[in-house]
């Protein structure tokens, strides 16, 4: 039976009468919106895993709401594939290190890669605003084509809509994608185990600061570039080196490293401990964060991958990451522990400990 969604249902998220920007910030409010509004309405086991993409297989009726009682473990048999979607509304459309087109490819490719999948096919949906210069659209489309080629994916279907002037912000892009999950690969946030090691493939927070500097007209001595990149090649190298010892992959986009690790700690019911001194952040990015009063742990990334791997495989995975162009500055930044389940702690540079909570909205620059 299909559970019926009726407008009689009380709205499950009643704290806010309207959507605010904080609902899209990747923090607690975003999560609340997803869990109480969307997951409660669309309830199904694939969705409830709350990973970057859904892991599906042809054997069990895809889209059959009737399997709600099925054990998620039964979704494992091969051939499995990952399915994911993301929308891109970024302003400015062009920024140091990328543009909305390359980002739309990288984002969905990465969501698939974080499921352990090899991304194959993407769709592209364009919502264009009347008046968008054709030359800009061409630049964006060419950038998408180039990004898809580098990532080894094909954009195989699409859709175009044009809205009246004033009803959109130039261009919004949605991409969805599918990728194949190799046999033996089992990546899920819930698989983090005490003793596991947490790695990241390079300096964090560059994307968010790059966008912010362009958007707000902030200029720093060195221009900060977005880290936007397709991570599927790196993930293949990680899986080749770590195999089944690789438990979790996650790209810390909105909400940053802090929010991603909190989500992992919550779904695996484990604690995570970070070592601040070992978390790579570019000098100019750190400087910008200091000036704005931002914590790099909460700033968005578009080419970063958190890897949680069994301790015995950590060195091999780290070495493999460092051999890849997108992982040269990879580092071990923390570990998974049995203590303080669902909480992320950080050892500060001077040796103190504190909790790293999820952000409730977006970070706002402080007064002084």
């Amino acid at each position, binding site marked *: 039976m299909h559970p019926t969604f009726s407008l009689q249902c009380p709205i499950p998220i009643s704290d806010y009468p309207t959507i605010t920007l904080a609902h899209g910030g990747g923090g607690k409010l975003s999560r609340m919106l997803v869990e109480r509004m969307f997951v409660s309405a669309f309830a199904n086991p694939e969705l409830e895993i709350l990973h970057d993409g859904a892991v599906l297989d042809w054997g069990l009726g895809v889209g059959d709401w009737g399997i709600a009682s099925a054990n998620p473990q039964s979704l494992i048999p091969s051939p499995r594939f990952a399915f994911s979607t993301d929308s891109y509304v970024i302003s400015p459309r062009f920024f140091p290190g990328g543009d909305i087109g390359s980002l739309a490819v990288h984002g969905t490719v990465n969501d698939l890669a974080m499921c352990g999948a090899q991304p194959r096919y993407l769709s592209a949906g364009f919502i264009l605003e009347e008046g968008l210069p054709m030359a800009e659209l061409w630049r964006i489309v060419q950038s998408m084509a180039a990004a898809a080629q580098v990532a080894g994916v094909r954009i195989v279907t699409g859709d175009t809509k044009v809205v009246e002037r004033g009803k959109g912000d130039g261009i919004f892009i949605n991409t969805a994608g599918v990728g194949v999950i190799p046999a033996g690969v089992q990546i899920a946030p819930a698989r983090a185990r005490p003793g596991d090691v947490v790695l990241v493939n390079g300096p964090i927070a560059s994307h968010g600061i790059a966008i912010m500097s362009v958007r707000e007209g902030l200029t720093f001595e060195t221009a900060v570039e977005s880290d936007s990149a397709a991570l599927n090649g790196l993930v293949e190298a990680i899986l080749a080196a770590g195999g089944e010892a690789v438990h979790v992959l996650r790209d810390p986009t909105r909400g940053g490293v802090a929010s991603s690790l909190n989500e992992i700690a919550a779904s695996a019911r484990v604690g995570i401990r970070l070592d601040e001194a070992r978390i790579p952040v570019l000098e100019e990015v750190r400087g910008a964060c200091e000036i704005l009063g931002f914590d790099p742990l909460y700033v968005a990334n578009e080419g970063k991958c958190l890897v949680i791997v069994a301790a015995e495989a950590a060195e091999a995975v780290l070495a493999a990451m460092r051999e890849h162009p997108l992982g040269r500055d990879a580092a071990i930044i923390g570990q998974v522990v049995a203590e303080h389940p669902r909480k992320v702690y950080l050892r500060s540079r001077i*040796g*103190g400990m504190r909790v790293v909570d999820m952000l409730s909205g977006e970070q706002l620059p402080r007064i002084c």
Partner: protein
Amino acid sequence: MRFVDEYRNEADARKFLNAIERLVTRGWTIMEICGGQTHTLIKSGIDRLLPPQITLVHGPGCPVCVTPLELIDRAIAIARRPEVIFTSFGDMLRVPGSAQQTFEVSQTSKVSRVAQDLLSVKAQGGDVRMVYSPLDAVKLAQAHPDRQVVFFAVGFETTAPGNAMAVWQAQQMGLTNFSILCSHVLVPPAMEAILGSPDNQVQGFLAAGHVCTVMGYWEYEPLAEKYRTPIIVTGFEPLDLLQGIYMTVKALEEGRWGVENQYTRAVTRGGNRPAQKLLAEVFDVSDRQWRGIGLIPRSGYRLRPAYAAFDAEQRFGVGGVTAQESPLCIAGQILQGLKKPHECSAFGGQCTPEHPLGAPMVSSEGACAAYYSYGRM
């Protein structure tokens, strides 16, 4: 990174901690004035590394926290007006006003209430913009001659010169569509209010380094003398704070009082004279309401009569708006160092960063938000 890493060095931090441990013979209560200092102390974990005899209490130096509730309501009233572009620093946008917006959530006729803040005004169509400098608001006023641009001018002596400069520039340019909603407050009168209170527990102060960058520290000398209290001008990095605490404990243990300067790389006794001159040109010292604390005489700035045309309260006639505080919130006691955030019955339950009852839970500099975010439960 230069000028940052030197002040976050673990080996040096350890040296200061050991020195403090060797020095301390009894319990001392020290207040850091500034919310930025509170934030660093909790974020770097210094509060838990210090010997147990030392109690840190968190002072009123969080501009968001001490801005009276009725001023938030006035800001919201102005921001709702269609002709207004309301500009503010980021962290004022999330402070809830007193008005509860009532809305029906469903046909079950359940009624929910939610506090309004400037972000929700924006979500409902108000033109609310975050700026990084009051001078950006002046530029907006130049660029939009058909709109009224208002800047929310809050903060201590640190932000006052920038706001004074904005008003001064707007006058020079002859702008008639720029104004500020002004709620500037001053540190020394607040310290005097704390020291003069019969319940005072504070024995030594870490004065706010950035305030002293502007004002110097000569104004603290009579306070230190009158209340026989050590006041150490202190910076914002972990090692600054550790050294400031060391200097305070040393003075306390030796029975000394007076003003000392830890933050010598930024602060001089006389302060920044051109900034002080500009402040005197644009502002008068006036009585101010402090959220949670009440009226403190001669504790803030208002625009001088010559600049009254830039006063948003007058321009939009919102001076009469008043507000009622939540009876649960003990922000006043927290801002005076009488209670710690987790000693509040609403902390973490009815009051969280998502649903703050009082401003110290909203601002990144607020003591309650620091305790909540960094897990001091």
